[in-house]
């Protein structure tokens, strides 16, 4: 059976070119980049080249990039690093209600450190209202964090509007761009952000890689204290092969990303319209067009997401869900709650995130999804009630 992978928001395969670039740094060029001798120095140079590649992908300068071990680490470093370094100025931060766990739980940690956190609500499409942001900023606010694109519902925020409000008020602005970098062109200058997190998982780079962009004047308390690595902002021996993978993938993405958008959007439209045609009582979650080009997310009435994912899995299709049963915490996705999806409907969440997918694959998914939904609904006591 051919496998159809439509969960690119969770992980992307590493391309052969990228693997090839990495492998020599496991055994041939294995030295520690801090070492004084030539092998160490050469590897240090290689790291700096990768830093430039990552910077170029997002319109930054190389010395504004810190490598991290994941998007989550980049988010932690941004949120805690800015807050702990800036707490003399104030102990209030603002994050949106649909942030990734790594931002949310960093904020919760800061609450335990006597910070106050304001959670900005979003509308039914997942958008933060700039006026609302302007209203909750206080003199003691030191940081605002709103994600660029949401991984569960695909919504893309008006970051430049939000960041300009913060700039005017002298508040540092961070965006979690893990779900956008690699999928759409991202430029830190256009976005007007002070800090931006990205991850290898969306970039065709290996898992366990990421980076934080930070404007040169931003003060950051390190998250991982240690030696002089990463300009003193992150200790620990550098993950050299990982960094090479992230750099190579960034280089490739920088060249390909503009072309990708149209193709992904076409696939998405095919998938969305197909589903709406073939399946009754289905809601597109997130914004209808301010969304990631390859991202299609739905709530399907009267069925449960985990069961649907398994059924699709049996047809060779990999997709995702925000259903409570599929989360280890057995809790409904806070993102779906935040956009006002009723809890029973939220159980029927299914998310397709496309990248190198084809029209044929979309057609196949449509067919199999329709029959899986039909089968599950035939089992479902709520569906009977609905149609009765």
């Amino acid at each position: 059976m051919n496998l159809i992978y439509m969960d690119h928001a969770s992980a992307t395969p590493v391309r052969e070119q990228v693997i090839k670039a990495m492998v020599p740094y496991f055994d041939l060029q294995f030295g520690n980049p801090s070492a004084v001798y030539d092998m160490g120095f050469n590897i240090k140079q290689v790291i700096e080249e990768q830093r430039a590649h990552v910077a170029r992908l997002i319109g930054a300068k190389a010395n504004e990039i810190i490598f991290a071990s994941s998007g989550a680490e980049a988010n932690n470093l941004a949120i805690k690093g800015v807050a702990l370094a800036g707490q003399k100025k104030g102990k209030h931060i603002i994050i949106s209600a649909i942030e990734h766990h790594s931002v949310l739980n960093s904020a919760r940690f800061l609450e335990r450190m006597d910070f106050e956190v304001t959670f900005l609500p979003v509308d039914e499409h997942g958008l933060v209202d700039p006026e609302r942001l302007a209203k909750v900023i206080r003199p003691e606010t030191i940081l605002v964090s709103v994600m660029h694109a949401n991984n569960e519902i695909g919504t893309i925020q008006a970051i430049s509007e939000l960041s300009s409000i913060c700039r005017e008020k002298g508040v540092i602005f961070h965006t979690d761009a893990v779900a956008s970098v690699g999928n759409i062109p991202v430029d830190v200058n256009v976005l007007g952000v002070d800090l931006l997190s990205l991850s290898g998982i969306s970039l065709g780079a290996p898992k366990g890689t990421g980076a934080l962009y930070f404007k040169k004047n931003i003060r950051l308390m390190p998250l991982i204290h240690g030696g002089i690595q990463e300009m003193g902002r992150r200790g620990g021996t550098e993950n050299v092969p990982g960094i090479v993978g992230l750099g190579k993938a960034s280089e490739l993405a920088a060249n390909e990303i503009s072309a990708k958008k149209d193709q992904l959007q076409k696939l998405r439209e095919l998938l969305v319209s197909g589903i709406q045609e073939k399946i009754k009582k289905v809601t597109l979650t997130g914004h209808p067009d301010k969304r990631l080009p390859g991202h299609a997310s739905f709530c399907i009435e009267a069925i449960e997401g985990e069961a649907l994912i398994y059924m699709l899995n049996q047809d060779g299709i990999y997709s995702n869900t925000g259903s409570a049963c599929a989360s280890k915490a057995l809790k409904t996705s806070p993102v779906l709650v935040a956009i006002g999806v009723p809890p029973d409907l939220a159980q029927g969440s299914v998310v397709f995130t496309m990248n190198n997918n084809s029209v044929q694959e979309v057609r196949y998914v449509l067919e199999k999804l329709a029959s899986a939904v039909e089968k599950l609904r035939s089992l479902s006591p709520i569906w009977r009630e609905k149609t009765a």
Partner: protein
Amino acid sequence: MYTDKVMDHFSNPRNAGVIENADGIGEVGNPVCGDMMAFYIKVKDDKLDDVKFQTFGCVAAIAVSSIVSEMAKGKSLKEAKLITKKTVTESLDGLPKEKMHCSNLGAEALAKAIKDYETKISE
């Protein structure tokens, strides 16, 4: 994550459906939590002549419902009452820990259906 037995019952659920004019009906759970089951029984000579179920829920919930229906069908009411979470789990060769509590409601729903029947006939 799931045993072959679970996957088999999930993929080919036995006795799915509704019994119109059922002798007893038992419903547990609710869709807000993610799992909801309805059991329908037909009783003849104190035996479960027919058992059907409908389930809204995850893989575990569906498999549990299916195997409970299979375990119950043909049994006497007394025997059927001995079906528990534990025996269900064993018959499925185990369930993931986090699924034990909320998806394993089949025995409960069946018991409710039997109770429903018993209440009705005692009236």
